[in-house]
């Protein structure tokens, strides 16, 4: 027992820090979620309200709408990102011969994922800017007339486009790493058998990439659930609540309406959903350590 506690000194500081400033606050927030707590209106008084916060949220139309937005946003965004990312990775791997050029391409593809989301949002807000934005100008030039990229019909898609720009690169990177890991001799065997490229892709490459693709998809889905910064700077959930996602709604409840009890309840609902999804990611999660991009 004494031996264990001595070596535990190694991880205890890290553990305690995370416990004190993440885990403990989260438990505290669970506590708050059972109280009526709105310091801006009612002052610092907390009143126990028997889980009414949860009831309010689950019967709140705005919450369910935000969940629908999330589904649309994640569904469309991740689907496009994964398809595009896989294509880009395989195009770079198969169709560029020079190792040096491969490296340059991969670095460019990776560039957006290194930028702060808030910067990406700034740039895309500028590009989508009604009137003076490049994309508005483009749509006028192409004869579609002036499109307002931030109106009710387009705002969500504009967000998704910016998201695709930022995150396709990571899918490409993961798939590229996975493709490198497939031994060349399998393809050489296929060559001696005279198997056409089409069949090689369908029966060998794609099945072998299925796992990393699934993994990348899950990670992206989890990430899109955390999505906040882009939304904040580009549309702030607007117009109206047309682009509002659950995380942003939580933010508004807490920091604009000062309704911390309800916000805490909503954040716990989101947390439970996250835990549910995480169960699926768990298995895949450990596997990713196998991959490393050799640029």
């Amino acid at each position, binding site marked *: 027992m004494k031996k264990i506690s001595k070596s535990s000194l190694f991880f205890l500081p890290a553990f305690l820090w995370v416990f004190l400033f993440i885990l403990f606050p989260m438990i505290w927030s669970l506590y708050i979620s059972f109280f009526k707590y709105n310091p801006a209106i009612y002052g610092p008084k907390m009143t126990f309200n028997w889980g009414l916060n949860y009831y309010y949220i689950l019967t709140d139309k705005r919450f369910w709408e935000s969940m629908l937005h999330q589904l649309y946003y994640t569904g469309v965004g991740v689907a496009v990102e994964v398809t595009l990312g896989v294509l880009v990775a395989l195009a770079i791997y198969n169709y560029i011969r020079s190792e040096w050029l491969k490296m340059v391409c991969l670095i460019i593809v990776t*560039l957006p994922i290194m930028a702060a989301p808030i910067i990406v949002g700034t740039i895309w807000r500028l590009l989508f800017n009604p009137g003076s934005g490049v994309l508005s100008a483009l749509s006028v030039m192409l004869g579609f007339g002036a499109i307002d990229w931030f109106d009710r019909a387009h705002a969500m898609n504009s967000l998704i486009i910016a998201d695709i720009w930022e995150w396709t690169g990571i899918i490409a990177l993961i798939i590229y790493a996975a493709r490198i890991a497939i031994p060349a001799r399998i393809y050489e065997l296929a060559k001696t058998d005279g198997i056409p490229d089409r069949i090689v892709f369908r029966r060998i490459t794609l099945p072998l990439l299925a796992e990393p693709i699934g993994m990348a998809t899950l990670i992206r889905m989890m990430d899109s659930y955390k999505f906040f910064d882009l939304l904040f700077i580009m549309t702030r959930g607007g117009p109206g609540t047309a682009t509002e996602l659950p995380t942003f709604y939580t933010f508004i409840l807490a920091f604009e309406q000062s309704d911390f009890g309800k916000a805490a309840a909503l954040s716990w609902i989101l947390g439970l959903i996250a835990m549910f999804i995480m169960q699926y990611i768990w298995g895949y999660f450990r596997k990713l350590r196998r991959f490393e991009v050799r640029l």
Partner: protein
Amino acid sequence: MELKRLIVWIALAIYILWVLFPIYWAINSSLKYVWEVNAIPPLWWPPKPTLKNYIWALFSERAGKSLLNSLIVSTGSTAIAVFLGALAGYYFSRYRMHEGIFWWLLTTRMFPPIIFAIPIFLMFKYMGILDTHLALIIAYVAVNIPLAVWLMRGYFDEVPVEVEEAARLDGLTPFKVIWKITMPIIAPGVAATIALTWIFAWNEFLLAYVLTRNVAFTYPVVLPTEVVSSQVFYNRMTALSIVALLPSIIILLVFRKHIVRMYVLR
């Protein structure tokens, strides 16, 4: 066959352009005056390139200070997070005990940050440390420890136990072995961990927005505030963006091999 190759190349070139264009546009805008930015139709090239916006980004009361704040907070939190992460990473790599805690640590990084942003805000308010560097550093360390542990454990795993044992037999005590043998061996990994942890702190927005106001604000907090003023200073915003983007690009170039590992725990 060659036609197919050509088509793929063109498609790839279009993709590369699509990635690079927004960055070009940001640079383009950052060299313009504000009326040029808002011109209709847009100007594809700055008519009279100016560095005024960069001077604002680097030296103005608000933007310049925000960059300085970002630097302080990122560097301070990285130092602590990597140190604690290295200790814990070494433990998990060598002793292979409490694996549950290891995975649990990683889990915290997968929740939407708003979930702990709210209670942390309330807690720091109660403690009276809102809007200080300390508040941000504490929060960033907490958020970044799992990343640092994950990365460091991976690097420690690559050093065979027998190398450390050889050092014991050469006459070093256990702590000296880590300091004089293991750490120098994984120095590149430590550098990568520092860089990647740093960039996360540097890029973080939500906690910074929630926990700071007029004193400890970082550059991501400043960016959107330039939007809400009566005039939208895109030229300034893009200039600040480009300046803030530079460390990311440098780190990407230097540590490109480590990016995939890092991304898993975004």
